[in-house]
C-alpha cells in the first residue's frame, strides 16, 4: 500500500468523523445564535441518541427504524424540557450563568443515564451490512456512507429551513438582533424553544448514526461535545456551512495527524486548532470580521 492510498484512507476516515463533529457543532451554533449562550449539554444529546436507540432495540425490542425515531423524539423532548425548566425561567440571567447551568444540566443528564443504563459500553447494529467497500485502495463500511449521506441530508434540510421558511427566517432575525426581532413581532421565546428542539434532535441524530461504528456509553458526550464545540468555533458559530466545514476540517486533520505524525497527538491537534483560532481569528476562519456596532 503506497502513501497516496494511505492518505485516501486517512481522509475518508476523517470525513466521517468530521461529519459527526459538524452535526454536533451545528447544534452548538443554532442555540448560540438564538440565545447567545453556549450549550455545553449538547454532547449529552449525542449520548442520548445512541443510548436510547440501544435501549429501544434491546429492551423494548423495536425494529431499528422505529427505535431511531423514538430516540430522536425523546432526546428532543429532553432538550425542550431542559429549555423550559432551566433556561426560560432565567431569561434575565447573564450568559455566563446560563452557560454554567448548561454544564450542570450535562452532568445531571450523564448521571441519570449512568444510573438508568449502567456504566457499560454498548454496540448498535450496523444499518446495513458489515462488508467493507473498496474505494481506490482504501476501505470503508456501508455505515460510513450512511453517516455521510444523513449528514448531507440534515445540512440540506437545515439550509432550506433557515432560508426558505417563515420560522427559519424569524430565527435568523433573532440571531442578528433579538430586541429588533421582537419589535417586528417575532416571538423570541418561541424561537429559543425551537432552537433547543432542533439542536437536540440534530445532536441525537449524530449520536445514532455514529453509534454502530464507535459504540456508545453514558459518557461519550463529553469528548464528542468538545469536538463539536471546536467545529463550531472554527466555523465562527455560523449555523450554516462554516461549522460544517469546520467539523470536516477538524476530522480530517485529526486523522491525518494520527496517521502521519503521531497517534499520541490526536486530541492535542483538535485543541491546538481551537486555541489558535480563539487567539488569531476569534470570528472563525470562514467568516469576515464584523465591525462592532456601538
Amino acid at each position, binding site marked *: 500500500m503506497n502513501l497516496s492510498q494511505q492518505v485516501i484512507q486517512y481522509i475518508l476516515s476523517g470525513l466521517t*468523523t468530521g461529519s459527526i463533529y459538524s452535526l454536533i457543532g451545528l447544534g452548538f451554533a443554532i442555540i448560540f445564535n438564538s440565545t447567545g449562550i453556549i450549550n455545553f449539554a449538547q454532547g449529552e444529546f449525542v449520548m442520548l441518541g445512541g443510548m436510547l436507540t440501544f435501549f429501544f432495540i434491546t429492551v423494548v425490542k423495536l425494529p431499528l427504524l422505529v427505535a431511531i425515531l423514538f430516540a430522536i423524539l425523546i432526546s428532543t423532548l429532553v432538550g425542550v424540557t431542559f429549555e423550559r425548566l432551566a433556561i426560560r425561567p432565567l431569561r434575565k440571567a447573564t450568559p455566563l450563568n446560563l452557560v454554567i447551568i448548561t454544564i450542570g444540566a450535562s452532568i445531571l443528564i450523564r448521571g441519570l443515564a449512568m444510573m438508568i443504563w449502567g456504566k457499560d459500553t454498548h454496540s448498535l447494529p450496523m444499518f446495513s451490512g458489515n462488508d467493507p467497500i473498496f474505494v481506490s485502495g482504501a476501505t470503508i463500511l456501508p455505515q460510513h456512507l450512511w453517516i455521510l449521506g444523513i449528514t448531507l441530508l440534515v445540512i440540506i434540510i437545515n439550509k432550506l429551513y433557515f432560508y426558505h421558511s417563515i420560522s427559519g427566517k424569524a430565527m435568523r432575525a433573532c440571531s442578528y438582533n433579538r430586541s429588533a426581532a421582537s419589535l417586528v413581532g417575532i416571538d423570541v421565546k418561541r424561537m429559543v424553544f425551537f432552537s433547543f428542539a432542533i439542536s437536540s434532535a440534530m445532536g441525537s441524530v449524530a449520536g445514532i448514526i455514529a453509534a454502530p461504528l464507535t459504540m456508545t456509553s453514558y459518557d461519550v458526550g463529553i469528548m*464528542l461535545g468538545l469536538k463539536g464545540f471546536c467545529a463550531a468555533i472554527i466555523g465562527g458559530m455560523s449555523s450554516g456551512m462554516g461549522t460544517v466545514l469546520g467539523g470536516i476540517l477538524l476530522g480530517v486533520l485529526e486523522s491525518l495527524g494520527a496517521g502521519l505524525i503521531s497517534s499520541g497527538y490526536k486530541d492535542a491537534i483538535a485543541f491546538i486548532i481551537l486555541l489558535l483560532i480563539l487567539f488569531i481569528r476569534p470570528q472563525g476562519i470562514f467568516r469576515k470580521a464584523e465591525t462592532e456596532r456601538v
Partner: protein
Amino acid sequence: MLSMTRTLFVALLITAQATIVLAAAPPIKIGALFAVTGPASFLGEPERNTAQMVVDEINQSGGIKGRMLLLITYDTQGDATRAVQAATRLIKEDKVVAIIGPSTTGDTMAIIPLVEKSQIPLISCAAGIKITEPVKPWVFKTAQNDSLAVAKIYEHLVKRKITKISILTVSDSFGSSGREQLKNQAAKYGIQILSDDTYGPKDTDMTPQLTKIRTNQSQALICWGTNPGPALIARNAKQLGLKLPLYMSHGVSSKKFIDLAGDAAEGIILPSGRVLVADILPNSDKQKKSLLSYVKDYQKHYKAEGDHFGGHAWDAVMLLKSAISKSGENPASIRGQLEKTKNFYGIGGIFNYSPADHSGLGKDAFVLVEVKGKDWKLVP
C-alpha cells in the same frame, strides 16, 4: 455513597447477628478500598461485590472459629488522595486488622507508606510490578503482574516464529504499563517492535493507526487496553482487511469484549486468568474447584459473570481468612502467616508467598485463550 450506606447497613446487620448468636465476641474488622466509581470502576465494582459476597459466605458458615468478619469498604474513585484518606480512616478510626485493595496501582503506591508505618498488612488487588518489587514487609498482592501476561504472549509468538510486531496501547496507566513491559521484554524473546502507537481511552476511530500498521512489515499486532477501545480496534482491523494475527491483553478478558467486537473478535488471542475458561479446564487443574465455586456464587448473587478482576478480591479475602484462622487476629501474626502461604489454589493462580516474594504467582497464572464461535477456547 450508596455503596457506603449499603456496607454500613450490612455491617450493622452482621453486628446485630453476631451479638444475638454469640452475645460476646466482637467481629474481626477487615478494611477494603476499591475504586467502585470513576475510571477504574471496571475493576473496583466486581472487586467490591466479590469481597462482600465472600465475607457474607464466611459469616453464614459460622465465621472464623466462631468470630464474625466485618468488612468496612470505602470507595477510592481511583483517586490516590481519597485512597490515603480512606486508608487513614480504616487504620485510625475503624481499627481494622488488615486491608484488602486498592484496585489500582496508583492508589496502592499512595497508601503503602501509611500501612508500612502503621504495621497493618495490605493485600493489594492491583497489578503493578512495583507494588511488591522491592518487597515491602507489610504489602502483598493478588493480581498477576503485567510482565507475566506479556511473557505469555511473547512465548506464543516465538512458537509461531513471529519476530516483527506492531503494538497499539491505550494512553492510560493500564496501557502505559503494558507498553513498558512489551518494550522491555521484546529483546529477550528476539522480537522487534516496528511501530509503537497509542490511542486515547475515549477515541472512536483507530483506522489511522491501523492503516499505518498495515503498511509496515509486521507479522502480528498486540493491542493493550480495556473495553471499549480494543473492541473498536478489532472492528477497524476487520474493516481495513488487516490480516495480521491480533493479540490483546488480559484487560479485555470478559464476555463483554466478544459482545462489543462481534464477528471481529474471531481468532483474537489473549492471556487471561483461568476464571474465564473455568468450565473447560481439565479436571486435573488444581484451581478448578475454587474457580467453579466462585463463578457459580457470583452468578447467583449478582446475575453477572464473575470475572478476572473480582477474582483478585476473592483471593485477597480467602488468603486473609486462612491466615487469620491459623494465627489469630493480630496484624503482625497475620502478616507472618500470609508470608508462609504455600500452594493456595485461588482464582488468579496458585499462590506461594515467601519473605522474598510477595506477589506469589508464576507465569502459569495466565492461560492463552482464543475467541472461537463467540466463546473462549484454550490455546494449547
